[in-house]
């Protein structure tokens, strides 16, 4: 089961670049530092884009988990 407990879940399944990153950026704005966002996605690009994004934004990419037909990424707001 999930290693991290998200405060909010963002459903980006079926969305392709750049929508997952754009939505992630917006969702993170509404979180408090330390809260965790789960991003569910299916776009193969997200695995590249998300680490690059969090590195710049100062948030922390905790890790990913394989879901049923999608991947969940967990980001802690910095």
């Amino acid at each position: 089961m999930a290693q991290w407990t998200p405060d909010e879940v963002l459903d980006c399944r079926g969305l392709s670049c750049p929508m997952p990153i754009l939505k992630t950026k917006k969702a993170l704005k509404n979180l408090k530092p330390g809260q965790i966002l789960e991003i569910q996605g299916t776009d193969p690009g997200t695995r590249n884009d998300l680490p690059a994004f969090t590195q710049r934004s100062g948030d922390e990419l905790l890790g990913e988990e394989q879901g049923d037909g999608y991947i969940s990424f967990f980001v802690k707001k910095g």
Partner: protein
Amino acid sequence: MSVMVEKFKEGYGVLFDRNWPLWVGAIVLALLGAICMAAGRPWGVAGGLRVWGDWIFYSIGLYKQAPGNALWLSNPAILTWGLLFGAFGSALLSRQFAFRPAPPLELLKGLVGGVFMGVGSVMAGGCNVGGFYTAIAAGSVSGFAMMVGLLVGALIGLKYLMWEIEHLPSKPPKQRTAKEGGRDWKKVQPWLGLIFFVFLVGWAYGLSYRAYTQPAVLMLAAVGIGVVIQRCRFCFVRSFRDPFMTGEAVATRAVALSVILSVLIFFTIKWFRADWQMIYIYHHWIGGLVGGIIFGIGMLLAGGCGSGSVWRAGEGQWKLIIAVLTFALSNSLFKNYVWTSKFAAAWGKPYFLPDLTGGYFWAIVITAVVMLLWWAVMAWNEETDRLTMV
């Protein structure tokens, strides 16, 4: 023996599990683009898509005359086939091929974005590749006009995407999200990819054997471009969009580097082949600017440009498959019915940059300065986020 297998797996992992760095793509794209140029047909994508569109309309009887370019072996068509095949094969080798459905709104954006790109690429004389990347490398002044247009279009498109996120609630897709397929399918993919590449090389060999050497060279180069571009996820849209979106400029740097390398190689070729000087200089000033804006909006909607839509279609993304189709169809229609020669003539003239600067030297300097300026502004923004809108 087992050590060999281990090492092979390790190498395979480096090549096909992880993505390649963008700067690798920047350099290899410049080299493969130069091979296309040396073979007499610089790299472009929209031209091939138009050939597809022409043939579709001819086959349903809308066009009475058979298209001038063959569906398979004409130079523009084979470049785009090669890009699609290369990306498809590369996605198989990387176990990344899957038919990926998308919510209705996304599919609609693919459709509309494709139409915008089709129309814009006719005006600009090519897509982000033929109208901007290759055009600047070839010394066409219109390439700079399209660059400005693409930047403006990307800003408008991004504004729309932000509006959409605020105002249009995205419906969570029905559970039919991307089926990556079972384990077995994933294991089979690299083998299918290998067979596919052997087939492509054999096909190219067969072509050259029958004296179709030029198409064979162009196809192999385009297949190579498809592989590199898929493995790097090399994306021209990102180079224009990301500085305004996330502030990131890594794609901008890669494209700027690639253009500078390309211009050096292209000009060398053109220097030795004076009769080739005007190759790829047929675009028009205002067309590049207006076409660039329209194209830029389209590529933001679709999430892929000319090359980006084709390689993502090769990965099985439905949204981009639709974008490629509407790109091809609208480009063909717009070229044949709206873009009459009289109309187009009013939009400007072709200019070869070295003719204006009195030689190649200053043309190279100007091109490099423009690219480095773009690089520098976006690198500055990477630190300050002054231009970032989201």
